[in-house]
């Protein structure tokens, strides 16, 4: 077990924030960030190792206006649809996939089967609570299990809305399902971090997990004690303690990985540190300034400018990828059935979910489309950022696969067929992007997931995923 004692380089966060800012502060910053080193050598220019591929999945709630999503024309000669128009400057980096579906989500009414099962390709258990199960592991977590050991965090789950509680009486599903797309095991959904400050600290705060003088021995003790107590309880209760035990082990692994990168003496580049510092300030500003108490910061979340909130979370994903802090991440623009008020957009007057039930009315459809388009604008922003971040001979985006889509097509009818999905990035050069690919009816969405897992170098998927037996044709 790696033994990290309290180190001399360790500095409290306060000095981090104060000292950061000018380029002058960089050497200082660097001394604070030894843990940031990446095993993929990406911190060093001209490294010979292959740059790692990263995978991000962006979930958009409540479907899209169906007639304004699909581009016209196929192959590389296609014209973006109105909703995808904001992506024009990135057209060459996109794969737009038409005709995919997640068959396992056809059953059950409403959003929940489709949201919780989006990345698992399974049918979730219909329950109001007592036996929650996705009946499968989500593809991001399949990837995290295999490539996660290379990075400090095996995966990063981000979002903007807290978990919804209670039962959706409309369809008799627990609303928990609508707030989770990542499933570590079939019974353990991973919550999204919605607080930018907490997400930033988890990624970049120097005195993070495992740095406490006693963390190691405490974890050792807790692991053994959990095992001991586990043997004394019933089966259902055991399953709960198993989650605890599994979590203890995962955190121990994370600490080992941090230690390994520390020992290898690798470090972040000045450019990375500068970006991290800029991010820190931006969060400070967005969340009510430095002087805001924690409570104020929390209260400000409620009135957080939604656009800025989403952009900060996506920027964190980009930075986490660029610094190779993780290679797998998900982001939920909102939870399923999100009623978020979008009247901050001109021409929109109402909540997201409500407007998605447009009843075919002209005004509602226009407002719905505007909300969809706003999501594309945010996605385009993330792609901008990923292009700005240089890596090797190209950009970060070249080494990514960034999925963006919804688990419904038309929100009014909860149509699960031909779901909207775009992937950006070349998967490290493996994919030929800049195309609109039309697949024949009933092509499994899970085939795309298999392709993405292949792009991540994940092995052992020969049994397929969900209703898919093989990866998608035509991406390479």
């Amino acid at each position: 077990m790696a033994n990290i004692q309290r180190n001399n380089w360790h500095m409290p966060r306060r000095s981090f924030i104060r000292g950061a800012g000018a380029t002058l502060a960089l050497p200082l910053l660097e001394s604070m960030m030894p843990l940031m080193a990446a095993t993929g050598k990406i911190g060093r220019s001209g490294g010979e190792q292959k740059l790692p591929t990263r995978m991000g999945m962006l979930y958009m709630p409540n479907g899209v206006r169906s007639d304004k999503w699909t581009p016209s024309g196929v192959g590389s000669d296609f014209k973006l649809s109105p909703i995808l128009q904001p992506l024009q400057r990135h057209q060459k980096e996109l794969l737009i996939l038409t005709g995919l579906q997640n068959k396992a989500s056809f059953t059950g009414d409403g959003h929940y089967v489709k949201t919780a099962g989006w990345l698992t390709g399974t049918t979730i258990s219909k329950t109001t609570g007592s036996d929650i199960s996705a009946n499968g592991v989500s593809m991001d977590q399949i990837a995290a299990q295999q490539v996660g050991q290379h990075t400090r965090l095996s995966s990063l789950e981000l979002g903007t809305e807290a978990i919804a509680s209670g039962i959706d009486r409309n369809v008799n599903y627990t609303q928990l399902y609508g707030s989770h797309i990542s499933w570590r095991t079939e019974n353990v959904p991973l919550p999204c971090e919605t607080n930018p400050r907490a997400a930033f600290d988890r990624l970049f705060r120097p005195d993070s997990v495992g740095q406490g003088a006693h963390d190691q021995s405490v974890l050792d003790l807790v692991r053994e004690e959990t095992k001991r107590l586990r043997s004394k309880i019933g089966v259902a209760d055991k399953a709960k303690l198993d989650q605890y035990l599994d979590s203890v082990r995962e955190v121990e692994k994370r600490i080992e990985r941090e230690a390994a990168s520390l020992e290898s003496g690798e470090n972040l580049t000045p450019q990375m540190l500068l970006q991290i510092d800029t991010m820190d300030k931006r969060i400070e500003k967005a969340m009510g300034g430095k002087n805001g108490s924690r409570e104020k910061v929390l209260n400000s979340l409620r009135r957080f400018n939604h656009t800025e909130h989403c952009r900060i979370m996506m920027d964190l994903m980009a930075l986490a990828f660029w610094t190779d802090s993780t290679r797998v991440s998900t982001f939920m623009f909102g939870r399923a059935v999100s009623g978020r008020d979008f009247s901050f957009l001109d021409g929109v007057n109402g909540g997201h979910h409500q407007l998605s039930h447009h009843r075919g009315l002209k005004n509602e459809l226009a407002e719905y489309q505007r909300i969809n388009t706003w999501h594309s604008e945010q996605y385009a922003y993330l792609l901008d950022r990923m292009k700005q971040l240089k890596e090797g001979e190209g950009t970060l985006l070249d080494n990514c696969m960034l999925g963006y889509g919804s688990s419904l097509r038309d929100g009014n009818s909860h149509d699960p067929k031909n779901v909207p999905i775009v992937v950006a990035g070349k998967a490290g050069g493996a994919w030929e992007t800049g195309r609109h690919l039309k697949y024949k009816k009933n092509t499994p969405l899970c085939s795309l997931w298999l392709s993405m897992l292949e792009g991540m170098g994940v092995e052992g998927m020969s049994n397929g995923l969900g209703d898919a037996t093989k990866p998608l044709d035509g991406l390479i």
Partner: protein
Amino acid sequence: MNRWLLIFPLLIGYFSVTNAQEKMDSFARNAVPFMKQHCYDCHNAKKAKSGIELQDMLTEQDAMKRHDLLGRCLDAVEYEDMPPDDKVDILPTEQERENFLKELAKIKTKISTGDFEKKAGRPVLSRLNRDEYELTIRDLFGVEFDTKQFFPADGSGSSGFTNSGDALFTSPVMLEKYLLASKAIIDKWYADPKLVGSTFKIKRGSSKREAARDLIRRAGRRAFRRPLTEDEIAQLMSLFVKADSKKGATYKNSMRGPFQAMLMHPAFIYKMEAVHPTLKEWRLSDLELATRLSYFLWSSMPDNELMRLAEEGKLSDKKVLIAQTRRMLKDLKAKAFAEHFGGQWLGLDDLWGTAYPNTKKFTSYTNSLQSSLYNESIEFASHVLSNNRPITDFIHADYTFLNEELAVHYSISGVKGKGMRMVKLKNKHRGGIIGQGAMLVVTSMPNRTSPVKRGAWILDKLLGTPPPPPPPNAGSLPDTDKPHKGLSFRKQLEKHRQQASCAGCHAKIDPLGFGLENFDAIGRWRVTDSGGKALDTKSILPNGKTFHTPYELKRILLDDNALFVRNFAKQMLTYAIGRELEYYDQPLLNELVATLRKQKMSSEALILGIVQSRPFTHRSKEP
């Protein structure tokens, strides 16, 4: 080949068939064929109309397990709503219908009379949710630690409350946070001499190690809510010894490890209860009972008095249990009961979740107003629960809790300052939960009120009879309440639901909401609609009763309070035992309702009934 080998499997098949038929209970024989013929077409796993699936209800036991659904089936078939006369299905004959109803009624009677093997049930092992964690830390160290900005939100499962183990997960992120929290909490505690006090004073004549062992024993007992085993003490001691053997180590600093380990220990994080493999059911130990009681009423750990009584084995004594419950309800800590039970039952957390008033339109809707709205309802609930008020105060009361900002919002004069205080109401419309802004906001759309949501809220939260889901493609209303083509918003709504498939349910939902139209989307009183016309608040209930104002609606709810009373008892029992209620809890529910009626709706009578009940004081083995 020997032909017996061929016949043998057939024989087995034959015997198992006859066996199965003999074993079939009356429900399987008489009710299932009816459902096969008349219900399965729509209510199967694939279609599940109205979210109802019936294909798995094959035996009496199945039917009992789904007692809630059973009641709905009974009503639907009795009032001939089902099977629908849509010219597709074959309608059952009168006789068939009657026979089917008889079977359902038999099961219903069985459940309500408790004609089955008694069972206490068992909640799934539950970790402290983030509210409980925060309050437990407060009581353990005196340290304020805001978990809301630190831990991810907890979900709630079928119970609707975030204290039920089945919906509380632990993921690596959570564990990282526990680890960081444990360190931060100890740091904060150590840094405050007032909080530390004489904790690290070593008694004359004691060695450092003796002192450490003693401190671990005492602190551990409070953290684990039970005495530690010698083994557990030894484990924690080993951390102390390791740290203390380093050069320059101080007693206080060497105790950091043991304290941190206590906060990470499953015995702290989880509310563990012992298992007795040889017993079918057993009484909880006094210490386990103390933990249940304190998390029920305080959302936190037992205090010294409770621990002492439990260790002396006195808590399970009826008189002591009652006295302690009364004492705890009077304690300030019982505010957590109002906040977590009351707030979650009524869905008030939605103020920070699904409710999004458009602040461009409602400029007076500020963060602080939102907090005041929430506090009003929590103070109110706290008053009802801690002062033995009748639970019907939730429907109507002549008081509420206001500060200046909220009083101005409600157009009530004479309230100054930021603090919430009890205010007698002259206006009869405002009192009770459905006249409070928090409820009115969470049931509104960003730009307008929603009589449908408000009506559904009353049916669901207050009466425990949530309306069935709308059919697919039911559509929704415009996002503003502006008059459209000369029709007021109400007229649009009425037109919208004229379709036969909508009218049935909306006739039950909408009138309740219309009765609250005098409250706008952020809870202010109004008499005109957005078009400037006088509001049309006339409401006609399905039974023909007509009313015009919130007060009249409350009168109607009070006059016929059976559903409310039962639902209230059900919600509180669910919260108290941390699991969804099962069929075997129904007789207890009947008893609690009877107690409430006998004792003039006394909230204390209900709480005392719950803490003495079997599911609260006992635990069954796993099914």
